[in-house]
């Protein structure tokens, strides 16, 4: 008896293997590589191993020895020939603005050179090598394991003696943006709840024909491409758009007083609310449909007004749906990228847009990864708080 059972079990387990492999390849591996990238940066360390070894022995308070200059020059040469120096120079430049052309120019000037004094030749190629700052930048860029992306992502920096200090207010970028992202997500969640709750109530309590029609009205936009919906909002909200035209025609505003409704925070809020609203309505509807109308009838037969019945009987029963919808909308909006990128303009950008900038434009993947990890941690800690307050076991999707 035991053998067929265990082989059946094994077969059942084997059926989940494709899914496990899928999750591993598409979720765990990229997440893991992102985590690693945020603190592991081997590029410079691999490119200039001997220079870095020499610099580790260096005291940092005076210009390094002739030997270090010679090692640097010999290590730059093959990188220059293979056109691999650009990536090294970019990384050092992030720690000390100007090092990019210092390194590139030095390599160019030293092509084919065999000087007596490497020190003089290198400093002649670029005088920056005569200062400690350049060498310190190379040494720091060569740290294989580093927390500098996290410092950067939290608007912190190191002063020359290595202490962690806060950036000056006008240089703070990421913490204000993260706070704004959280605030916007919260606002969108609240708006979605206020708009979605009555709709879900209506769908759950209407006659089947009406409720099917209403549900379709929720689902058709839900099935429509995100890009189509977002660009439709541009058509509606822009300066010469439908909404402004109607307001002008109705005499609410003058032709020169057209409202700025898109390419700002208003555009982001409106478009994201519309895009995410089904994620609030559908869980709410699923929970509300299971609330028997008998309860409200019982409440009113016991003398409760509709409001009393709603507050004391219906609302508590719909809470699992509220919890599920809110969590879904909040978490989705925290990582939202395409809608703010299209309608957010200058002031409606969120942290995900900055992550995309570092992924695609600056190619500072370490910083992008650190920002992603911080965002992930923020979501996870909010989730824990939420679980404490609401209780995840009370959440129901249907």
């Amino acid at each position, binding site marked *: 008896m035991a053998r067929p059972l265990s082989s059946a079990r094994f077969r059942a387990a084997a059926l989940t293997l494709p899914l496990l492999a899928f999750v591993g390849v598409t979720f765990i591996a990229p997440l893991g590589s992102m985590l690693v990238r945020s603190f592991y940066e081997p590029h410079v360390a691999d490119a200039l191993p001997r220079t870095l070894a020499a610099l580790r022995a260096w005291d940092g308070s005076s210009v390094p020895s002739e030997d270090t200059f010679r090692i640097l020059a010999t290590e730059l040469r093959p990188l220059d020939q293979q*056109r*691999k*120096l*650009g*990536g090294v*120079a*970019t990384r050092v*430049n*992030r720690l000390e*603005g*100007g*090092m*990019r*052309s210092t390194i*590139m120019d030095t390599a160019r000037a030293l092509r084919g050179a065999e000087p007596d004094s490497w020190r003089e030749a290198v400093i002649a190629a670029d005088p920056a090598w005569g200062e400690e700052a350049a060498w310190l930048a190379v040494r720091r860029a060569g740290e294989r394991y580093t927390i500098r992306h996290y410092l950067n992502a939290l608007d912190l920096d190191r002063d020359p003696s290595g202490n962690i200090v806060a950036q000056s207010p*006008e*240089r*703070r*970028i990421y913490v*204000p*943006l993260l706070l*704004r992202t959280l605030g916007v997500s919260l606002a969108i969640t609240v708006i979605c709840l206020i708009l979605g709750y009555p709709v879900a109530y209506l769908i759950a309590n209407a006659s*089947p024909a009406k409720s*099917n029609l209403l*549900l379709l009205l929720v689902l058709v936009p839900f099935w429509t491409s995100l890009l189509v919906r977002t660009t439709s909002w541009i058509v509606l909200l822009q*300066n010469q758009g439908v909404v402004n035209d109607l307001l002008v025609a109705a005499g609410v505003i003058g032709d020169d007083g057209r409202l700025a409704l898109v390419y700002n925070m208003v555009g982001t809020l409106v478009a994201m609310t519309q895009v995410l609203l089904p994620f609030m309505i*559908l869980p709410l*509807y*699923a929970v509300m449909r299971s609330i028997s109308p008998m309860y409200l009838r019982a409440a009113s037969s016991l003398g409760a007004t509709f409001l009393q019945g709603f507050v004391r009987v219906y609302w508590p029963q719909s809470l699992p749906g509220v919890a599920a919808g809110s969590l879904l909308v909040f978490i989705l909006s925290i990582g939202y990228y395409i809608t703010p990128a299209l309608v957010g303009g*200058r*002031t409606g*950008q969120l942290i995900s847009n*900055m992550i995309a*900038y570092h992924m*695609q*434009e*600056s*190619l*500072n993947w370490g910083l992008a990864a650190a920002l992603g990890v911080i965002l992930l941690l923020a979501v996870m800690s909010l989730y824990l708080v939420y679980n404490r307050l609401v209780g995840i076991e009370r959440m129901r999707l*249907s």
Partner: protein
Amino acid sequence: MMRNRGDRKVPARNQGTIRLALLVAAFGIWNTGCSSEGITVVSWGGSYEAAARKALFEPFSAETGITVHVESYNGGLAQIRAQVETGNVHWDVVDLEFADAVKGCDEGLLEVIDIDELPPAPDGTPARDDYFAGTYSDCGGGAVYYSTAYAYNRDSFTGERPSTIQDFFDLAKFPGRRGMRRVPFVNLEMALMADGVPTEEVYAVLSTPEGVDRAFRKLDTIKAEVVWWEAGAQPPQMLADQEVVMSTAYNGRIFNAQVLEGQPFTIVWDGQVLDYGQAAIVAGTPRLEAAKQFLMFASRVESIAAIGRYIAYSPTRRSGMSLISTHAETGVDMRPHMPSAPENLTRALRNDAVWWTNHAEELTERFSAWLAR
């Protein structure tokens, strides 16, 4: 929730249609992916691209029989980088801002072109001596001078009109919205010039943290009134619609709006930032030979000068300067419209592309944060 809609299958008849549609779509993708007879040249859209079509692409196709597919972009290396890194290069030649040409070359994103391979001047002077100093990178060819200056619509001003770079930043004297490109380049330099920094000290000041703060403080004074543009074709449009009273713009775009469309625009050359572009070949293109042929064609003095017969961009080769003549379609004398005309150079800054390769990342980050505040 889908219970009452049921789980309907797609009817067999429709499945056939869908399959056919997929096949057609797949063929379409395959077809565009394999159209290798010809090269793809990426330019900047609008009137500059139109000029390049007439001055470069059409004569090149006529001479060599190689078709030129034209695509547009708004600058930057991101798309080139993506193509090179995924090994799926479908852009062959790209018209780049000089800083991007230098950076892309250093990072191996562009094919190296020896300056001595480029065609010599008509009198035999080698290209190395014919190009103005610092206007070629290790990877580029072609190239024209252009300028970012600000322009205004004369219809927007009844009384006094702006005439200096200070006026652009003076909301009290000239109220109204301003257009600026949504990048830190040029804007920071203009802010410092308007704040009284002499042109020759702009980059030295900008190299200090205090200088950067100072430039951003100056930009702060007009930030609320700025409309940000991205494509070069936008500023003439915004000026024509009087959406802004003045806007920074590429001078050639304004010139074309003035001359071809008769728009009442005036360029204020005071505080202009001169820059030059370069055409370069994307590394690893499968159409290297044709791309090289195009680059050599585009680097001829006659080709560079021909662009200047359609748009007010002047040659970066000495021997091209004497070839500046009239507009090919209207006969307008091009000399006074060129950014390099002596009367336009009273306060002009030459964009320091190498400085920007060092500071672009840091300042773009700071600029985005500043924009979002």
